[in-house]
């Protein structure tokens, strides 16, 4: 038996023994996710145990080196672990912007001290991070950001405001783009810094969305003192990190893909009924089938882009394409669900509609084409970077 085969067998046995039963159920609501942090909330004892056990093996970040809290697995072993987790239906033990976004930056741009300070608590789910990028006047034009970090000797003095900071009200630390040179052209005066959200002068205010949820905050900085050792990379070179992270974010957002599950036509049949096994509303049936065609094709395109990547043939800016189309598809999907659901889908409260779940998800989907770079920005990227069309 090969080493990898043995690894697979041992992993399977360990997962079967250690993954609590309720952690093998699909994630349905946002509350089913575990985000860790200084004040973690666990929905169940199983969720707490699952995080603890995975942390102990370094398997929240299986391929990170062990000195940073990782599992030290090889790429092949990592793939096997993920496959075995999928097989058993194991949930991710830890969702984390620290793992998804900050860690790649620290590995690429951080210094050894920063890695040793921040990566292990991220791996263990002890520190929850948020991302300070957008500002009220800097949306698609992110580089025009105005939050200022003034040089104050051994520290920066940060003043300004961020917006769309995911879960800032629940985060322990923030990684943040700030302007450190106001005289330079806009892309050349930006730096990337880290600081504790409990630092005096930091405050947050959740933003209520049209869906009635508040996953984002406004975040305010009023004379926040940030030690200079918390600067990542070179001063005024933060835009390079930002771009790296944006491309990375597009991939993260997009790799989520579409929710698996039953074809839309079968869901629609619940409200609309069928005749001879055919959905009763012919007009909607056609729209749904056309959607399913595009959704299946898109899933295949995702699969193909992964295979191209492995083969070293990945097309550039593929993440823009994926992000753009997945937003369009998800919005079409929710529009169709609303049409299929009729008046029942329009309820906003009460048990019958599970507190207006369908309507809220529909409204939530409208953000897909805005957050993490609007669809317009993605189309610009495709036109310029893939199609090589000239600037205006």
């Amino acid at each position, binding site marked *: 038996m090969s080493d990898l085969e043995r690894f697979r067998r041992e992993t399977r046995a360990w997962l079967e023994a250690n993954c609590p039963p309720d952690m093998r159920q699909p994630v349905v609501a946002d509350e089913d996710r575990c985000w860790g942090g200084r004040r973690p909330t666990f929905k169940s004892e199983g969720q707490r145990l699952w995080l603890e056990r995975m942390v102990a093996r370094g398997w929240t970040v299986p391929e990170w080196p062990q000195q940073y809290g990782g599992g030290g697995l090889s790429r092949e072993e990592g793939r096997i672990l993920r496959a075995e987790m999928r097989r058993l239906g194991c949930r991710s033990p830890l969702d984390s912007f620290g793992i998804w976004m900050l860690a790649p930056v620290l590995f690429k741009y951080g210094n050894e001290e920063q890695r040793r300070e921040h990566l292990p608590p991220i791996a263990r789910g002890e520190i929850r991070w948020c991302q300070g990028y957008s500002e009220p006047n800097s949306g698609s034009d992110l580089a025009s950001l105005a939050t200022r970090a003034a040089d104050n000797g051994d520290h920066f003095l940060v003043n300004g405001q961020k917006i769309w900071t995911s879960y800032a009200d629940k985060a322990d630390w923030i990684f943040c783009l700030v302007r450190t040179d106001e005289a330079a052209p806009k892309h050349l005066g930006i730096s990337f810094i880290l600081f504790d959200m409990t630092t005096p002068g930091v405050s947050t205010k959740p933003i209520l969305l*049209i869906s009635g949820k508040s996953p984002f905050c406004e975040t305010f900085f009023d004379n926040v003192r940030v030690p200079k050792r918390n600067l990542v990379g070179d001063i005024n070179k933060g835009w390079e990190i930002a771009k790296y992270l944006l491309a990375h974010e597009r991939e993260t957002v997009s790799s989520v893909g579409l929710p698996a599950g039953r074809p839309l036509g079968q869901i629609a049949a619940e409200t609309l009924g069928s005749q001879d096994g055919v959905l009763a*509303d012919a007009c909607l049936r056609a729209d749904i089938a056309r959607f399913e065609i595009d959704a299946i094709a898109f899933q295949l395109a995702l699969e193909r882009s992964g295979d191209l990547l492995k083969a070293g043939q990945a097309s550039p800016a593929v993440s823009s394409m994926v992000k753009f189309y997945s937003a369009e598809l998800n919005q079409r999907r929710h529009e169709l669900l609303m049409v299929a659901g009729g008046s029942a889908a329009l309820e906003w409260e009460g048990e019958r509609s599970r507190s207006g779940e369908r309507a809220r998800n529909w409204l939530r989907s409208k953000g897909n084409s805005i*957050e993490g770079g609007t669809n*317009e920005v993605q189309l610009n990227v495709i036109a310029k970077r893939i199609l090589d069309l000239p600037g205006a």
Partner: protein
Amino acid sequence: MALILTEEQTMVRDSARAFLADKAPVAHLRKLRDSRDRVGFSRELWKAFAAMGFCGILVPEALGGSGLGHVEAGIIMAEIGRNLTPSPFLSTALVGATALLRDGNAARNRELLPKLAAGDLILTLAVDERAKHAPAATALTAERSGNGFKLTGDKCFVVDGHVADLFIVAARSAGAPGEREGVTLFLVDARAQGVAVERTVMVDAHNAARVRFDGVTVDADAVLGEIDRGWPLLEAALDVGRAALAAELAGLGEEAFGRTLSYLKARKQFGRPIGSFQALQHRAARVFVELEITQAAVLKALQTLDADFERAAAFVAVAKARAGTSATLAVQEAVQLHGGIGMTDEFDIGLFMKRARVAQELFGDDGFHADRLARLQNY
């Protein structure tokens, strides 16, 4: 007839516009919603509607109404659409009043219509029984019982059903669900024995209800229209409601677009107004064209209801379908072009998206009316 407003109609529009912008702007809806008001609209505003002559817009002057037509009703609906004003105007002044007026029972109308015009009676049509509008699918049974009937079944998505004084209930007195024959309309008191009302809180903070009729007995004179042949009256009331919803959607779409246009001119990114980007300009231009065309379709439907009611069905179907799709386009582009701010509850544009969705669904969405037009055109 020219497809434009007459001078008198323009005056009605100007006065409705000023009145609603003053008394019931979007903030009015927001306040009702945020206070979780149990009525969901302002009874005080409804009395002001009466004073303006809105409640009795279709009611003859002899019965205390304004004696105006569907174009005028549509004008008011368009302003309601612009302001997202919640009120029983659609359910009572238009759909309910139409059923009474076209039923034409003089004694009953002498009793009810003055009250309705005075804002003292809320009346609504209870037609749908499942999530998608399908009046012919009416299954709620009307069994003969003594001198009258006994009604048993459930209705949903009954507009203003949570506060209605009277229901006009579409019931199956003969035939099978799916057939137009065998439908009878009944006027039922909301306080009658066996009526149970459950308010449904909707995404748009407007009001509807589920209503259960559990062996509710009514007299024979509770019938509106003809027994077993209530279909034409039902369709007449629905078509007035559909054209009115089309007008509301047209007004709503224009307002959402107008706000978007202002934002495109004001919001700057990359050192210039985002409205200077050609891709956004073309999208805005498309939305504008769609809304302009819808205006004509809506006005035609309203005019035809006034001039030649029996031939209005096709125009009503066109207007409701067009208004639904073009308002949907307008609110989708509105949210997208507003970016993050458009996703916030604090900003009004999302409320337009929510109301557009409900109005699109009510009394048949664009797919329903496309099917209807196809049948009317014999294919």
